[in-house]
């Protein structure tokens, strides 16, 4: 869910037009507006970072071409 505003230990997150309040006190560092959070029962568990998609894309291309099977 995408962070749209932050107030102390809480933020407002949005997904498909639906907004929810979310506790961010358990995160290692405060998110920025526009970040994506993994949220469960009103708690942010993790700030999602795009550090795997490029690697996966590369591996999948190799796999699909039969080089990693």
């Amino acid at each position, binding site marked *: 869910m995408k962070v749209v505003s932050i107030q102390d230990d809480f933020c407002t997150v949005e997904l498909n037009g639906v907004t*929810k309040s979310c*506790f961010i006190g358990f995160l290692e560092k405060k998110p920025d507006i526009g970040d994506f959070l993994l949220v469960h029962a*009103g708690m942010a568990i993790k700030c999602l970072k795009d550090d795997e998609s490029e690697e996966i894309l590369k591996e999948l291309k190799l796999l699909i071409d039969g080089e990693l099977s």
Partner: protein
Amino acid sequence: MTFNPDFFKQKELTKSLFKKIKEKSQNFDNIRLMEFCGTHTHNIFQYGFRYAFSPNITFIAGPGCPVCVTAEEELFEAAHLIEHHNVGVILYGDLIKVPVSGKSLADYRSEGHSVEIVYSALDAITIAEKHTDKQWVFLGVGFETTIPATAAAIDFAKKRCLKNLTFLSFHKNTRSVLKALGSFGRLYADGVILPGHVSAVVGWEYFSEVKSFGIPAVVVGFEPLDILLGVYELIEMIEKNDVDIRCAYKRAVEEKGNAKMLEKVEELFYLKDAPWRGIGVVKDGGYELRDAFAEYNARARFSLPTQEFKPKNSGCKCGDVLIGKITPDACPLFKKVCNPENPVGPCMVSHEGTCLAYYKWSGDIE
């Protein structure tokens, strides 16, 4: 790099990987992959994967629906609090419809009792502060993913000196049940799809003991590409007899998990032997509040039934469904007397329940 939430929904990549798994699945007669988490059960149906690799790969659902594994005697405690202590009960949605010896918490609400549904445990604070003339009990249901929310709510209740809110922990520990099933040869699987959100809290290394049962396991996310990546990795491990734990959900799951959540849970709770519906008492299978937080523990504030609870025998096979021993269509009640309108057992109630997933998605496929 900016996070792209749609990356793992890409149609072309998903189709290509699907074909690759289909080809690879021909190397197997029939391997059983257990998806522990109820959300995986529903998504595997919804994306059309459930029967896509049959008969070479069979997906079986595990005990990963928190509402489904909440024991009848635990819900009986909640009913007892309403009937004998006139408390208001606060809970997560699905739990309200689970029948206990024929009567659900929704039935109590129909009779005029206070039963409130919330999205987060923190909403219990708002309710208790708004209705100070009443004692409220929050029913803590869920696994390692959900217990930090209960811990945060207890922290808030303490900081705000709330005297009319206590907590009844039905929280369960997923690692303990995997160990219990594995130790007694009841893990009916060749590979395990580990729960993504639980792992985001506890870290993927947490499940490393699953290896001792000779079964590989992979932490998997919830989008179509996530699930196929996890399945591919798992069948590759099975093929190579590589018994290990791997993570295919790295954008959300790290080796060690969320340290602040784990510390808070450890501060407030300890592991105790606890009943799992359909499985029995699991060693270290549940969480209880530490004595230092007794004033927020409903079991300490109110006298609760101590006699053994004897549920009526309804013929419900949720117990066997929860451990993957049978699929819901093997239960004589399924789609006959048990359906979402009139659920006999919790697996037909919860949005994560296996019986509800089969009811909604399986059609007449045998």
